[in-house]
């Protein structure tokens, strides 16, 4: 039979189901009537004859079902019947259904959300053609930083890539006439779009042929999103000139709708040729090769056909080894790896974290299934009378199991649908969420079809999982006994599957509670640890002087004027300047090689330490509340005409000079050979991330370092930050109307470094709460069930003079024992599992008495909450009432 014809027949059968069914009924009834006619003829009264005929016919329902199947009543038809019946049963026990659906909705919802994030961040490739063939080149440390001359060498000398493109982030003021506003631009090599295979939505993109040396290609390509929001989809923008940091650029095109660059977190507003970067950055990066000039954020390209990633890596590494030999002072040792662009440095931690979350969410689902499994088993036990009757009336066990399974699946589908709706709403909000006001960072999650499939699969799997729990129970049912003796008067003393499930579920819950407490504790410590500065009562004022047109020597002069202007702001207590960003801000600290003073060969093998490098003005130490341990602060006389000086932290001094007291007056050398005198030692601190181990750091005076247009002033003040910011703006605008200022509290800026810990804490907190809820319902269900089943026994105990304590022990002893067992197991696993957290959460150690005590307390509380009502019920047993009723 052709498949279509088969389906046709099937459809007819389904739609004509009632017809078929009534015809069948009529035929069977006709049989009984004929038999009754015969019996009547033999002398029985009509009523008796009909009764006998029915008995002789046998199990009517059973034969009816068997006939239906013999007629070719299909799987689907039985399914419909089962579903209808399931809905009827579930409607009858609303409380059970509600609890089950909500439990599953939460569990499946959590899984769907985590999967959505996993999909967006880890699984989904970029929106470029053949993303699987696009490789980013990463350094040993996982970053992509490279100097532009190194990039050129790698691009031109490799034999493995079709072509290599490079990108650099640039944050500029974009002015379409009289409305300068900050925008995130990507300075890319001319071949960028061709390497990716991206064609413009509008106008054209730039190509390698557009580059004719520095500042030769003043073109920009807008991203679709930016074109939409800033230019309101105006198609006439092509050809218009806009000002980027006061330099004219021509808009030549708009990129396709779903292309925001090759970095998932930071979507580009526009793309510009990297050869023009000097105009927007204020300094030229195209010629310097040094390790401190690694301004190219990332290189990416496609492999030639037939070239394997391993071959390409050998190729790249051998070129790099040659560069190392040729430029020993500039190029340090490095081994490349290839990765898919999109997340870069974050790929590994983000992947690990999301995978960890997925695991925890999976555990939640398992716990939910365990919970529902025992609910279901209890439900089936309560229905054992009904099941026994159905068996007695000729239904088969398979049929009954199928029916129970259908109920389970109906519940899990309903729960999954509810969970999916919730999770999609959540993911939508997540995708529009900008966690940091000052950084253009986004979490690009867009739920797609995959998430529906995952939710459906999860629903089916979990439905089967918990639906199978009562199987053994059903197979064991002896209809005769149950109908005779009444349901469930025996409560097994043995360890049942339900007990195992409960212990399992409680231990999962304890794992989750442990991890979330560890995360919370880590976050609290992270927020209150010693950073080496005090972010309280401190405002930062960021200004990119390049946006206002300052370059070269104009920068330090302007910085000094701004510094003086800030001193006069009412309420300003201390003011200091730091080039680029202060420590722990935007995870953007620089580091530099230093050498011992006696070193003359500045090749990478002689590097004595790689401290973080901050360029600060006099007053910065006071403004940031960094303690000077010994020596002196900088003064404005520490400029180019004086000998080079530096402040170092305690770690640096112990690495290079042994002790703090030894350090002052000693010298070390920078990468360029400059001998620098240490004039003071400051306390240790955190510089790039909270989880870093103690790192060396040095502070150089701004007047002795090359001018940097990106300036951050730090102001310590007890004034209200809002008012203070307004006063600061007024004072600084007097100097230059065109200054683009960004005022933030330092504490607010720390959000970025605390972000992973916050997210981890939030996620684990939510999962922990869900786990706790599940175990409450689990224990509650178990305790309530055992109390209700043993009311009679408890009544007898009370009648015989048992004390409250003994009644409680009898009623709840088992539940409490299971709870203890589960908690202990969970705590153990939790302690092991939190190692995973260590990379995200500051000082995530489970061997913290507070955490351990917290977990124990939490589990005790859960136990109390969950057993409270059953305990009350057990204690209020009135033996008279009970014994009379039975």
């Amino acid at each position, binding site marked *: 039979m052709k498949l279509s014809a088969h389906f046709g027949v099937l459809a007819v059968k389904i739609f004509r189901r009632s017809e078929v069914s009534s015809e069948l009924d009529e035929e069977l009834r*006709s049989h009984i009537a004929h*038999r009754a006619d015969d019996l009547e003829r033999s002398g029985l009264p009509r009523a008796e004859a009909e009764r006998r005929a029915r008995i002789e016919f046998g*199990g009517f329902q059973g034969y009816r079902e068997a*006939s239906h199947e013999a*007629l070719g009543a299909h799987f689907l038809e039985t399914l419909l019947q089962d579903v209808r019946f399931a809905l009827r049963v579930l409607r009858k026990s609303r409380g059970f259904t509600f609890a089950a659906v909500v439990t599953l909705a939460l569990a499946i919802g959590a899984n769907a959300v985590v999967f959505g994030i996993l999909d967006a961040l880890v699984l989904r490739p970029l929106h470029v053609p053949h993303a699987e063939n696009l490789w980013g080149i990463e350094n040993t440390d996982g970053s992509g930083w490279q100097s532009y001359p190194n990039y050129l060498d790698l691009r031109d000398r490799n034999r493995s890539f079709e072509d290599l493109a490079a990108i650099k982030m640039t944050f500029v003021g974009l002015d379409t006439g009289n409305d300068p506003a900050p925008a995130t631009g990507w300075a890319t090599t001319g071949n960028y779009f061709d390497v990716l295979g991206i064609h413009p939505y509008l106008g054209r993109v730039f190509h390698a042929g557009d580059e004719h040396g520095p500042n030769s290609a003043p073109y920009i390509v807008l991203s679709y999103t930016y074109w939409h929001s800033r230019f309101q989809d105006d198609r006439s923008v092509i050809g218009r000139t806009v000002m980027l940091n006061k330099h004219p650029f021509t808009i030549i095109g708009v990129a396709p709708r779903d292309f925001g660059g090759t970095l998932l977190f930071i979507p580009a507003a526009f793309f510009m040729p990297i050869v023009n970067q000097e105009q927007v950055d204020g300094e030229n990066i195209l010629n310097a090769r040094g390790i401190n000039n690694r301004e190219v954020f990332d290189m990416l390209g496609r492999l030639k056909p037939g070239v394997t990633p391993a071959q390409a890596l050998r190729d790249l590494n051998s070129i790099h080894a040659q560069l190392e030999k040729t430029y020993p002072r500039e190029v340090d040792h490095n081994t490349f790896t290839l990765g898919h662009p999109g997340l870069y440095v974050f790929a590994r931690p983000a992947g690990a974290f999301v995978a960890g979350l997925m695991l925890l969410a999976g555990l939640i689902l398992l716990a939910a299934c365990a919970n529902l499994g025992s609910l279901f088993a209890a439900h089936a036990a309560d229905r054992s009378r009904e099941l026994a009757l159905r068996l007695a009336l000729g239904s088969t066990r398979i049929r009954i199991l199928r029916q129970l399974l259908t109920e389970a699946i109906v519940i899990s589908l309903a729960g999954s649908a509810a969970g999916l709706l919730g999770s999609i709403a959540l993911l939508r909000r997540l995708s529009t969420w900008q966690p940091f006001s000052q950084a253009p960072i986004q979490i690009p999650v867009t739920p797609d079809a995959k998430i529906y499939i995952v939710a459906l699969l999860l629903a089916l799997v979990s439905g089967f999982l918990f639906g199978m729990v009562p199987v053994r129970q059903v197979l064991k049912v002896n209809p005769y006994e149950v109908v005779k003796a009444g349901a469930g008067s025996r409560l097994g003393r043995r360890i049942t599957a339900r007990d195992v499930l409960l212990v399992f579920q409680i231990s999962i819950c304890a794992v989750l509670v442990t991890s979330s407490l560890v995360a919370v504790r880590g976050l609290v410590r992270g927020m209150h640890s010693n950073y080496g500065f005090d972010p309280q009562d401190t405002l930062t004022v960021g200004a990119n002087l390049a946006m206002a047109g300052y370059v070269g020597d104009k920068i330090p002069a302007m910085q000094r004027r701004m510094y003086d202007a800030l001193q006069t702001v009412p309420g300003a207590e201390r003011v200091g300047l730091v080039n680029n960003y202060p420590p722990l801000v935007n995870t953007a600290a620089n580091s530099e090689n230093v050498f011992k003073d006696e070193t003359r060969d500045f090749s990478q093998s002689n590097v004595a330490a790689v401290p973080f490098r901050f360029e600060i003005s006099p007053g910065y130490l006071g403004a940031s509340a960094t303690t000077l341990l010994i020596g002196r602060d900088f003064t404005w006389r520490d400029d180019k005409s004086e000998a080079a000086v530096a402040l170092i932290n305690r770690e640096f001094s112990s690495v290079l000079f042994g002790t703090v007291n030894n350090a002052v007056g000693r010298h070390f050398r920078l990468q360029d050979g400059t001998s620098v005198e240490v004039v003071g030692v400051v306390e240790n601190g955190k510089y790039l991330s909270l989880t870093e181990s103690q790192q060396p750091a040095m502070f150089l005076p701004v007047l002795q370092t090359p001018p940097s247009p990106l300036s951050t002033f730090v102001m310590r003040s007890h004034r209200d930050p809002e008012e203070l910011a307004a006063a600061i703006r007024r004072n600084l605008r007097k100097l230059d109307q065109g200054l683009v200022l960004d005022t933030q509290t330092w504490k607010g800026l720390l959000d970025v470094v605390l972000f992973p810990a916050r997210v981890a804490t939030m996620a684990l907190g939510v999962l922990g709460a869900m786990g706790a809820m599940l175990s409450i319902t689990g224990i509650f269900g178990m305790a309530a069930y055992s109390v209700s089943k043993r009311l009679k026994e408890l009544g007898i105990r009370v009648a015989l003079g048992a004390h409250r304590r003994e009644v409680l022990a009898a009623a709840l002893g088992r539940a409490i024992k299971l709870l203890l067992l589960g908690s202990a197991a969970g705590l153990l696993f939790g302690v092991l599992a939190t190692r995973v957290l260590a990379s995200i959460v500051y000082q995530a150690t489970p061997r913290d008495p507070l955490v351990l005590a917290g977990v124990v307390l939490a589990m005790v509380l859960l136990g109390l909450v969950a057993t409270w009502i059953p305990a009350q019920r057990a204690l209020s047993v009135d033996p008279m009432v009970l014994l009379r009723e039975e």
Partner: protein
Amino acid sequence: MTDQAQILPGTLDLLILKAVSLGPLHGYGVLLRIGQISDSALLIEQGALYPALFRLVRQGLLKASWGTSDNNRRAKFYELTAAGRKRLREEADGWNRLVTAMAAALATRPEEV
């Protein structure tokens, strides 16, 4: 009733085909006819007839149509199709061969070995 035998699995179909081959019958009639031709020696539960009947219809060995019975009741009548007739012949042959072989085997006396 003690000399009634439970019918062997698989033989019900054959009995039904045989019963219907003697003329169109409704379900109860099939039952009576089987009782009649087997001298009430074979016992089947009445309801068990129907799944078997429907299976045969589905296999195309029987065809069914509604009619009126002698009792003046609506009933569904079954008759053999050509395929049914062929199947009956084959199955009956097979059955007879088996019976002959079994009977011969069971009738074997010691001196014949």
